[in-house]
Protein backbone atom coordinates (compact mmCIF):
# COMPACT_ATOMS: atom_id res chain seq x y z
CA UNK A 1 0.00 0.00 0.00
CA UNK A 2 1.25 3.54 -0.71
CA UNK A 3 2.79 5.66 2.01
CA UNK A 4 0.34 8.14 3.46
CA UNK A 5 1.11 11.78 4.17
CA UNK A 6 -0.90 14.02 6.46
CA UNK A 7 -1.66 17.72 6.41
CA UNK A 8 -1.44 19.92 9.47
CA UNK A 9 -4.18 22.52 9.16
CA UNK A 10 -4.32 25.74 11.14
CA UNK A 11 -7.34 27.79 11.89
CA UNK A 12 -8.24 29.82 8.84
CA UNK A 13 -6.98 27.26 6.35
CA UNK A 14 -8.99 25.96 3.44
CA UNK A 15 -9.30 22.22 3.00
CA UNK A 16 -10.34 20.34 -0.09
CA UNK A 17 -11.70 16.91 0.67
CA UNK A 18 -11.15 14.98 -2.53
CA UNK A 19 -12.75 11.57 -3.00
CA UNK A 20 -11.50 9.38 -5.82
CA UNK A 21 -12.17 5.91 -7.15
CA UNK A 22 -9.11 4.68 -5.28
CA UNK A 23 -8.99 6.59 -2.05
CA UNK A 24 -9.30 10.03 -0.51
CA UNK A 25 -7.01 13.03 -0.31
CA UNK A 26 -7.02 16.20 1.76
CA UNK A 27 -5.57 19.33 0.18
CA UNK A 28 -4.67 22.18 2.52
CA UNK A 29 -3.86 25.82 1.89
CA UNK A 30 -3.91 29.03 3.85
CA UNK A 31 -6.59 31.52 2.95
CA UNK A 32 -4.56 32.89 0.03
CA UNK A 33 -5.11 29.51 -1.67
CA UNK A 34 -1.96 29.77 -3.75
CA UNK A 35 -0.07 26.67 -2.65
CA UNK A 36 -1.41 23.40 -1.41
CA UNK A 37 -0.15 20.53 0.73
CA UNK A 38 -1.60 17.11 0.10
CA UNK A 39 -2.60 14.48 2.62
CA UNK A 40 -3.40 10.91 1.65
CA UNK A 41 -4.08 8.64 0.00
CA UNK A 42 -6.49 7.47 2.67
CA UNK A 43 -8.33 4.16 2.17
CA UNK A 44 -6.22 3.23 -0.89
CA UNK A 45 -8.17 1.05 -3.27
CA UNK A 46 -11.58 2.10 -1.98
CA UNK A 47 -13.93 4.40 -3.88
CA UNK A 48 -14.82 7.48 -1.86
CA UNK A 49 -17.96 9.01 -3.33
CA UNK A 50 -18.72 11.15 -0.28
CA UNK A 51 -16.77 13.23 2.20
CA UNK A 52 -17.83 16.03 4.53
CA UNK A 53 -16.49 18.31 7.20
CA UNK A 54 -18.36 18.84 10.45
CA UNK A 55 -17.19 22.00 12.18
CA UNK A 56 -20.23 22.31 14.44
CA UNK A 57 -20.15 22.31 18.22
CA UNK A 58 -16.40 22.74 18.35
CA UNK A 59 -15.66 19.69 16.21
CA UNK A 60 -13.06 19.44 13.50
CA UNK A 61 -14.30 16.17 12.09
CA UNK A 62 -13.77 14.86 8.60
CA UNK A 63 -16.21 12.22 7.39
CA UNK A 64 -15.56 9.80 4.55
CA UNK A 65 -17.48 6.92 3.03
CA UNK A 66 -14.87 4.55 1.59
CA UNK A 67 -16.36 1.65 -0.31
CA UNK A 68 -14.21 -1.39 -0.91
CA UNK A 69 -15.15 -3.54 -3.85
CA UNK A 70 -14.45 -6.53 -1.62
CA UNK A 71 -15.47 -5.52 1.88
CA UNK A 72 -18.30 -3.04 1.27
CA UNK A 73 -18.75 0.47 2.61
CA UNK A 74 -18.25 1.80 6.11
CA UNK A 75 -18.72 5.38 7.22
CA UNK A 76 -15.54 6.56 8.91
CA UNK A 77 -14.40 9.79 10.56
CA UNK A 78 -11.23 11.52 11.63
CA UNK A 79 -10.83 14.15 14.33
CA UNK A 80 -7.23 14.92 13.37
CA UNK A 81 -7.58 15.68 9.66
CA UNK A 82 -6.83 12.20 8.41
CA UNK A 83 -4.06 11.01 10.67
CA UNK A 84 -6.37 8.53 12.39
CA UNK A 85 -9.71 7.22 11.18
CA UNK A 86 -12.39 5.33 13.01
CA UNK A 87 -12.96 1.79 11.81
CA UNK A 88 -16.22 0.75 13.45
CA UNK A 89 -16.76 -2.96 13.97
CA UNK A 90 -20.34 -2.77 12.86
CA UNK A 91 -21.10 -0.77 9.71
CA UNK A 92 -22.95 2.29 11.04
CA UNK A 93 -25.20 2.59 8.01
CA UNK A 94 -27.08 -0.49 7.01
CA UNK A 95 -30.60 -1.28 5.94
CA UNK A 96 -32.92 -2.94 8.45
CA UNK A 97 -33.66 -6.58 7.71
CA UNK A 98 -37.25 -5.68 6.84
CA UNK A 99 -36.04 -3.60 3.88
CA UNK A 100 -34.68 -6.71 2.19
CA UNK A 101 -31.82 -4.87 0.48
CA UNK A 102 -28.16 -4.24 1.15
CA UNK A 103 -26.28 -0.96 1.11
CA UNK A 104 -24.35 -0.54 -2.09
CA UNK A 105 -22.79 2.91 -1.76
CA UNK A 106 -22.91 6.06 0.35
CA UNK A 107 -23.27 8.99 -2.03
CA UNK A 108 -23.71 11.97 0.25
CA UNK A 109 -22.86 12.99 3.79
CA UNK A 110 -24.63 16.14 4.98
CA UNK A 111 -24.05 17.57 8.45
CA UNK A 112 -27.29 19.04 9.81
CA UNK A 113 -27.96 22.68 10.47
CA UNK A 114 -26.08 24.65 13.14
CA UNK A 115 -29.10 24.34 15.42
CA UNK A 116 -29.05 20.53 15.25
CA UNK A 117 -25.37 20.02 15.86
CA UNK A 118 -25.58 16.27 16.49
CA UNK A 119 -27.62 15.54 13.37
CA UNK A 120 -26.17 14.17 10.15
CA UNK A 121 -27.80 12.85 7.01
CA UNK A 122 -26.55 10.37 4.44
CA UNK A 123 -27.88 9.66 0.99
CA UNK A 124 -27.21 6.15 -0.24
CA UNK A 125 -27.69 3.62 -3.01
CA UNK A 126 -30.18 1.98 -3.29
CA UNK A 127 -31.86 5.35 -2.98
CA UNK A 128 -32.60 6.06 0.65
CA UNK A 129 -31.99 8.66 3.32
CA UNK A 130 -30.37 7.82 6.65
CA UNK A 131 -30.24 10.12 9.65
CA UNK A 132 -28.16 10.19 12.81
CA UNK A 133 -29.14 12.23 15.87
CA UNK A 134 -26.05 11.36 17.92
CA UNK A 135 -23.24 12.85 15.84
CA UNK A 136 -22.90 9.79 13.63
CA UNK A 137 -22.79 7.02 16.26
CA UNK A 138 -26.04 5.39 15.19
CA UNK A 139 -28.14 5.79 12.07
CA UNK A 140 -31.67 5.00 11.04
CA UNK A 141 -33.44 4.69 7.73
CA UNK A 142 -35.95 7.40 6.91
CA UNK A 143 -39.02 5.21 6.59
CA UNK A 144 -41.24 7.90 5.10
CA UNK A 145 -39.17 8.12 1.95
CA UNK A 146 -38.33 4.41 1.85
CA UNK A 147 -42.01 3.49 1.97
CA UNK A 148 -43.08 6.11 -0.57
CA UNK A 149 -45.56 4.46 -2.96
CA UNK A 150 -43.73 5.85 -5.99
CA UNK A 151 -40.41 4.26 -5.02
CA UNK A 152 -41.17 1.01 -6.82
CA UNK A 153 -41.19 3.00 -10.07
CA UNK A 154 -37.83 4.66 -9.51
CA UNK A 155 -35.10 3.28 -11.77
CA UNK A 156 -31.32 3.47 -11.60
CA UNK A 157 -29.39 5.98 -13.68
CA UNK A 158 -25.96 5.30 -15.10
CA UNK A 159 -24.35 5.59 -11.68
CA UNK A 160 -26.88 3.40 -9.89
CA UNK A 161 -30.08 4.33 -8.09
CA UNK A 162 -28.60 6.82 -5.71
CA UNK A 163 -29.83 9.54 -3.41
CA UNK A 164 -27.10 12.05 -4.14
CA UNK A 165 -28.34 15.45 -2.99
CA UNK A 166 -29.61 16.57 0.42
CA UNK A 167 -30.65 20.20 0.86
CA UNK A 168 -31.54 21.27 4.39
CA UNK A 169 -33.64 24.40 4.53
CA UNK A 170 -31.93 26.67 7.09
CA UNK A 171 -35.31 28.27 7.93
CA UNK A 172 -37.09 25.09 8.95
CA UNK A 173 -35.86 21.88 10.52
CA UNK A 174 -38.83 20.15 8.93
CA UNK A 175 -38.07 21.03 5.33
CA UNK A 176 -35.61 18.85 3.43
CA UNK A 177 -35.25 18.39 -0.31
CA UNK A 178 -33.51 15.36 -1.77
CA UNK A 179 -32.68 14.28 -5.30
CA UNK A 180 -32.49 10.76 -6.66
CA UNK A 181 -31.27 9.46 -9.98
CA UNK A 182 -33.60 8.50 -11.45
CA UNK A 183 -36.64 9.64 -9.56
CA UNK A 184 -36.22 13.40 -9.42
CA UNK A 185 -36.63 15.58 -6.36
CA UNK A 186 -38.76 14.93 -3.31
CA UNK A 187 -39.46 17.31 -0.48
CA UNK A 188 -40.64 16.86 3.08
CA UNK A 189 -42.15 19.59 5.19
CA UNK A 190 -42.72 17.53 8.30
CA UNK A 191 -39.21 16.44 9.13
CA UNK A 192 -39.27 13.33 6.95
CA UNK A 193 -42.59 11.77 7.89
CA UNK A 194 -44.06 12.36 4.44
CA UNK A 195 -42.53 13.24 1.09
CA UNK A 196 -43.93 14.54 -2.17
CA UNK A 197 -42.36 14.77 -5.62
CA UNK A 198 -41.34 18.30 -6.58
CA UNK A 199 -40.20 18.49 -10.19
CA UNK A 200 -42.48 21.07 -11.78
CA UNK A 201 -40.91 22.34 -15.00
CA UNK A 202 -38.05 19.81 -15.08
CA UNK A 203 -37.83 17.84 -18.32
CA UNK A 204 -37.37 14.10 -18.77
CA UNK A 205 -36.24 13.73 -22.39
CA UNK A 206 -35.89 9.99 -22.00
CA UNK A 207 -39.59 9.41 -21.16
CA UNK A 208 -42.66 9.64 -23.42
CA UNK A 209 -44.13 12.23 -21.08
CA UNK A 210 -41.66 15.09 -21.00
CA UNK A 211 -42.81 16.68 -17.75
CA UNK A 212 -43.83 13.81 -15.45
CA UNK A 213 -44.62 14.23 -11.77
CA UNK A 214 -41.50 12.20 -10.95
CA UNK A 215 -38.87 10.16 -12.77
CA UNK A 216 -36.53 12.95 -13.83
CA UNK A 217 -32.81 12.29 -13.85
CA UNK A 218 -31.68 15.17 -11.69
CA UNK A 219 -27.89 15.26 -11.53
CA UNK A 220 -27.28 17.98 -8.95
CA UNK A 221 -29.14 20.73 -7.11
CA UNK A 222 -27.57 23.60 -5.17
CA UNK A 223 -29.23 26.04 -2.81
CA UNK A 224 -28.15 29.54 -1.78
CA UNK A 225 -27.28 29.89 1.86
CA UNK A 226 -28.26 33.58 1.95
CA UNK A 227 -31.48 33.17 -0.03
CA UNK A 228 -32.62 29.55 0.34
CA UNK A 229 -35.46 30.14 -2.13
CA UNK A 230 -32.83 30.33 -4.88
CA UNK A 231 -31.69 27.04 -6.32
CA UNK A 232 -29.98 25.88 -9.48
CA UNK A 233 -30.39 22.42 -10.96
CA UNK A 234 -28.28 20.51 -13.45
CA UNK A 235 -30.42 17.88 -15.06
CA UNK A 236 -29.75 15.03 -17.46
CA UNK A 237 -30.43 17.52 -20.25
CA UNK A 238 -31.62 20.77 -18.77
CA UNK A 239 -30.28 23.57 -16.65
CA UNK A 240 -32.75 25.19 -14.29
CA UNK A 241 -33.30 27.87 -11.68
CA UNK A 242 -35.90 28.08 -8.97
CA UNK A 243 -36.91 31.22 -7.09
CA UNK A 244 -39.38 29.51 -4.78
CA UNK A 245 -37.36 26.91 -2.96
CA UNK A 246 -37.72 24.32 -5.70
CA UNK A 247 -41.48 24.38 -6.23
CA UNK A 248 -41.18 25.52 -9.85
CA UNK A 249 -38.21 25.41 -12.20
CA UNK A 250 -37.34 27.66 -15.13
CA UNK A 251 -34.97 26.62 -17.92
CA UNK A 252 -31.90 28.88 -17.91
CA UNK A 253 -29.72 27.06 -20.43
CA UNK A 254 -29.28 29.97 -22.85
CA UNK A 255 -25.67 30.59 -23.76
CA UNK A 256 -24.09 27.32 -22.69
CA UNK A 257 -22.57 24.86 -25.20
CA UNK A 258 -24.63 22.01 -23.73
CA UNK A 259 -27.34 21.78 -21.12
CA UNK A 260 -26.06 18.34 -20.16
CA UNK A 261 -23.68 18.06 -17.24
CA UNK A 262 -23.34 16.98 -13.66
CA UNK A 263 -21.52 19.39 -11.40
CA UNK A 264 -22.66 22.72 -9.94
CA UNK A 265 -21.63 25.16 -7.26
CA UNK A 266 -23.37 28.28 -5.95
CA UNK A 267 -21.77 31.42 -4.60
CA UNK A 268 -21.62 31.63 -0.80
CA UNK A 269 -22.97 35.20 -0.73
CA UNK A 270 -24.49 36.00 -4.12
CA UNK A 271 -27.57 33.90 -4.94
CA UNK A 272 -27.42 35.03 -8.58
CA UNK A 273 -24.00 33.46 -9.10
CA UNK A 274 -23.35 29.81 -9.91
CA UNK A 275 -20.79 27.70 -11.74
CA UNK A 276 -21.26 24.66 -13.98
CA UNK A 277 -19.16 22.47 -16.30
CA UNK A 278 -21.24 21.59 -19.38
CA UNK A 279 -20.59 18.22 -21.00
CA UNK A 280 -21.31 17.11 -24.53
CA UNK A 281 -24.32 14.79 -24.71
CA UNK A 282 -25.23 11.89 -22.54
CA UNK A 283 -23.42 9.63 -24.98
CA UNK A 284 -19.99 11.29 -24.91
CA UNK A 285 -20.12 12.98 -21.50
CA UNK A 286 -16.93 14.97 -22.08
CA UNK A 287 -16.23 18.68 -22.31
CA UNK A 288 -17.50 20.05 -25.66
CA UNK A 289 -14.93 20.66 -28.42
CA UNK A 290 -12.15 19.33 -26.20
CA UNK A 291 -12.19 22.58 -24.22
CA UNK A 292 -12.38 22.54 -20.46
CA UNK A 293 -14.69 25.43 -19.68
CA UNK A 294 -16.39 26.41 -16.47
CA UNK A 295 -19.46 28.55 -17.11
CA UNK A 296 -20.52 31.16 -14.59
CA UNK A 297 -23.69 33.15 -14.30
CA UNK A 298 -23.87 36.32 -12.26
CA UNK A 299 -27.46 37.14 -13.14
CA UNK A 300 -29.34 34.04 -12.03
CA UNK A 301 -28.95 32.24 -15.33
CA UNK A 302 -29.97 34.99 -17.76
CA UNK A 303 -26.52 34.59 -19.29
CA UNK A 304 -23.46 32.39 -18.77
CA UNK A 305 -19.80 33.26 -19.33
CA UNK A 306 -17.01 30.82 -20.12
CA UNK A 307 -14.23 30.95 -17.53
CA UNK A 308 -11.21 29.47 -19.27
CA UNK A 309 -8.07 31.28 -18.13
CA UNK A 310 -5.67 28.60 -16.94
CA UNK A 311 -7.80 25.71 -18.18
CA UNK A 312 -6.73 23.57 -21.18
CA UNK A 313 -8.53 24.56 -24.36
CA UNK A 314 -7.24 21.89 -26.69
CA UNK A 315 -7.70 18.11 -26.56
CA UNK A 316 -9.14 18.38 -23.07
CA UNK A 317 -11.76 15.64 -23.03
CA UNK A 318 -12.66 15.81 -19.38
CA UNK A 319 -15.64 14.68 -17.33
CA UNK A 320 -16.61 16.38 -14.10
CA UNK A 321 -19.02 14.28 -12.06
CA UNK A 322 -21.93 15.41 -9.94
CA UNK A 323 -20.12 15.88 -6.65
CA UNK A 324 -16.76 16.83 -8.06
CA UNK A 325 -17.23 20.63 -7.88
CA UNK A 326 -17.35 22.84 -4.83
CA UNK A 327 -16.72 26.33 -3.59
CA UNK A 328 -15.29 27.63 -0.36
CA UNK A 329 -16.98 30.36 1.74
CA UNK A 330 -14.20 32.96 1.49
CA UNK A 331 -14.32 36.35 -0.19
CA UNK A 332 -13.56 36.12 -3.07
CA UNK A 333 -14.93 32.61 -3.22
CA UNK A 334 -12.67 29.77 -4.24
CA UNK A 335 -14.04 27.29 -6.76
CA UNK A 336 -12.63 23.80 -7.28
CA UNK A 337 -13.32 20.77 -9.41
CA UNK A 338 -11.82 17.39 -10.17
CA UNK A 339 -12.04 15.28 -13.30
CA UNK A 340 -12.33 11.62 -14.12
CA UNK A 341 -8.86 11.89 -15.59
CA UNK A 342 -7.49 12.69 -12.15
CA UNK A 343 -6.91 16.41 -12.50
CA UNK A 344 -7.84 18.88 -9.80
CA UNK A 345 -8.31 22.56 -10.63
CA UNK A 346 -8.88 25.53 -8.39
CA UNK A 347 -9.58 29.23 -8.61
CA UNK A 348 -9.18 31.66 -5.73
CA UNK A 349 -11.00 34.48 -7.56
CA UNK A 350 -14.40 33.03 -8.38
CA UNK A 351 -13.30 31.46 -11.65
CA UNK A 352 -11.43 34.31 -13.34
CA UNK A 353 -8.15 32.37 -13.25
CA UNK A 354 -7.58 28.67 -12.71
CA UNK A 355 -4.62 26.63 -11.54
CA UNK A 356 -4.07 22.93 -11.77
CA UNK A 357 -3.66 21.74 -8.20
CA UNK A 358 -2.99 18.10 -9.03
CA UNK A 359 -2.61 15.73 -11.94
CA UNK A 360 -2.50 11.97 -11.89
CA UNK A 361 -4.97 11.40 -9.10
CA UNK A 362 -7.30 8.44 -9.47
CA UNK A 363 -10.62 9.42 -11.05
CA UNK A 364 -12.10 12.20 -8.93
CA UNK A 365 -15.69 11.61 -7.82
CA UNK A 366 -16.16 14.15 -5.04
CA UNK A 367 -14.76 17.49 -3.95
CA UNK A 368 -15.73 19.39 -0.81
CA UNK A 369 -14.22 22.76 0.06
CA UNK A 370 -14.29 23.99 3.63
CA UNK A 371 -12.77 26.77 5.65
CA UNK A 372 -11.78 25.80 9.15
CA UNK A 373 -11.92 29.37 10.34
CA UNK A 374 -14.73 30.78 12.44
CA UNK A 375 -17.84 31.75 10.46
CA UNK A 376 -17.48 34.94 8.51
CA UNK A 377 -19.31 38.02 9.82
CA UNK A 378 -21.74 39.51 7.35
Amino acid sequence: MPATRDVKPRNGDVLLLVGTMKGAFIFRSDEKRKSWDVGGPYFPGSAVYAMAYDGRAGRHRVWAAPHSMHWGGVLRSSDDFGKNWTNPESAPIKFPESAGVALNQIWQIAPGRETESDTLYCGVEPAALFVSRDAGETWSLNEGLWNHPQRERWVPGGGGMCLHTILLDPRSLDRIRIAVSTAGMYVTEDGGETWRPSNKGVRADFLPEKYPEFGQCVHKVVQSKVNPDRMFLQNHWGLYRSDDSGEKWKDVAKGVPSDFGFAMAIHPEDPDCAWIVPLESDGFRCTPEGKLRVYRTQNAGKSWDAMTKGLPQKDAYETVLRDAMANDPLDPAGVYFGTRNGKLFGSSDEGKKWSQLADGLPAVVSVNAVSISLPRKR
Partner: protein
Amino acid sequence: MSLVFVIPGPLRELAGNRAEVRVKSSAESASKALTLLWAECPGVRDRVVTEIGEVRPHVNIFIDGESIKFTGGLASPVRDGAEIVILPALSGG
Protein backbone atom coordinates in the same frame (compact mmCIF):
# COMPACT_ATOMS: atom_id res chain seq x y z
CA MET B 1 -14.04 -30.13 18.01
CA SER B 2 -12.52 -27.13 16.33
CA LEU B 3 -12.59 -24.96 13.24
CA VAL B 4 -9.88 -22.71 11.88
CA PHE B 5 -10.67 -19.50 10.05
CA VAL B 6 -7.99 -17.88 7.93
CA ILE B 7 -8.46 -14.11 7.98
CA PRO B 8 -7.34 -11.99 5.00
CA GLY B 9 -4.85 -9.20 5.63
CA PRO B 10 -7.27 -6.26 5.30
CA LEU B 11 -9.56 -7.71 7.99
CA ARG B 12 -6.97 -8.76 10.56
CA GLU B 13 -7.27 -5.45 12.41
CA LEU B 14 -10.86 -6.46 13.11
CA ALA B 15 -9.78 -9.92 14.31
CA GLY B 16 -7.36 -8.83 17.00
CA ASN B 17 -4.53 -8.71 14.41
CA ARG B 18 -4.76 -12.48 14.00
CA ALA B 19 -4.19 -14.30 10.71
CA GLU B 20 -5.98 -17.34 12.05
CA VAL B 21 -8.90 -17.61 14.40
CA ARG B 22 -9.49 -21.00 16.00
CA VAL B 23 -12.84 -21.80 17.60
CA LYS B 24 -13.42 -24.85 19.78
CA SER B 25 -16.69 -25.82 18.30
CA SER B 26 -18.18 -27.47 15.26
CA ALA B 27 -20.86 -26.45 12.78
CA GLU B 28 -23.03 -28.27 10.29
CA SER B 29 -22.87 -25.60 7.63
CA ALA B 30 -20.81 -22.68 6.39
CA SER B 31 -23.49 -20.33 7.65
CA LYS B 32 -23.34 -21.74 11.19
CA ALA B 33 -19.55 -21.83 11.12
CA LEU B 34 -19.43 -18.15 10.17
CA THR B 35 -21.78 -17.35 13.03
CA LEU B 36 -19.08 -18.75 15.34
CA LEU B 37 -16.55 -16.44 13.70
CA TRP B 38 -18.85 -13.42 14.09
CA ALA B 39 -19.16 -14.17 17.80
CA GLU B 40 -15.37 -14.19 18.11
CA CYS B 41 -14.71 -11.26 15.73
CA PRO B 42 -17.89 -9.21 15.28
CA GLY B 43 -16.15 -6.61 13.11
CA VAL B 44 -15.43 -9.16 10.40
CA ARG B 45 -19.10 -9.88 9.81
CA ASP B 46 -20.19 -6.69 8.03
CA ARG B 47 -17.14 -6.87 5.77
CA VAL B 48 -17.79 -10.42 4.61
CA VAL B 49 -21.58 -10.52 4.35
CA THR B 50 -24.20 -7.88 3.62
CA GLU B 51 -26.97 -6.91 6.01
CA ILE B 52 -29.24 -9.43 4.27
CA GLY B 53 -26.79 -12.21 5.05
CA GLU B 54 -25.34 -12.75 1.58
CA VAL B 55 -21.62 -13.19 1.07
CA ARG B 56 -20.37 -10.02 -0.62
CA PRO B 57 -20.02 -10.56 -4.38
CA HIS B 58 -16.25 -10.06 -4.45
CA VAL B 59 -15.46 -12.24 -1.43
CA ASN B 60 -14.67 -15.94 -1.69
CA ILE B 61 -14.94 -18.48 1.09
CA PHE B 62 -13.16 -21.82 0.81
CA ILE B 63 -13.78 -24.81 3.06
CA ASP B 64 -10.87 -27.23 3.00
CA GLY B 65 -9.75 -25.72 -0.27
CA GLU B 66 -13.08 -25.78 -2.10
CA SER B 67 -15.07 -22.63 -2.85
CA ILE B 68 -18.50 -22.69 -1.26
CA LYS B 69 -19.83 -21.35 -4.57
CA PHE B 70 -19.60 -24.96 -5.82
CA THR B 71 -20.64 -26.84 -2.70
CA GLY B 72 -23.95 -25.28 -1.74
CA GLY B 73 -23.12 -21.73 -0.73
CA LEU B 74 -23.74 -20.91 2.90
CA ALA B 75 -25.46 -24.30 3.27
CA SER B 76 -22.19 -26.09 2.40
CA PRO B 77 -21.32 -28.83 4.89
CA VAL B 78 -18.41 -28.34 7.27
CA ARG B 79 -16.45 -31.22 8.79
CA ASP B 80 -15.03 -31.09 12.28
CA GLY B 81 -11.52 -29.61 12.09
CA ALA B 82 -12.17 -27.83 8.79
CA GLU B 83 -10.08 -24.90 7.60
CA ILE B 84 -12.25 -22.01 6.38
CA VAL B 85 -10.38 -19.45 4.31
CA ILE B 86 -11.79 -16.00 3.54
CA LEU B 87 -10.19 -14.28 0.55
CA PRO B 88 -10.87 -11.26 -1.63
CA ALA B 89 -11.90 -12.37 -5.11
CA LEU B 90 -9.79 -11.56 -8.13
CA SER B 91 -11.47 -8.32 -9.11
CA GLY B 92 -10.78 -4.66 -9.37
CA GLY B 93 -9.33 -2.29 -11.87
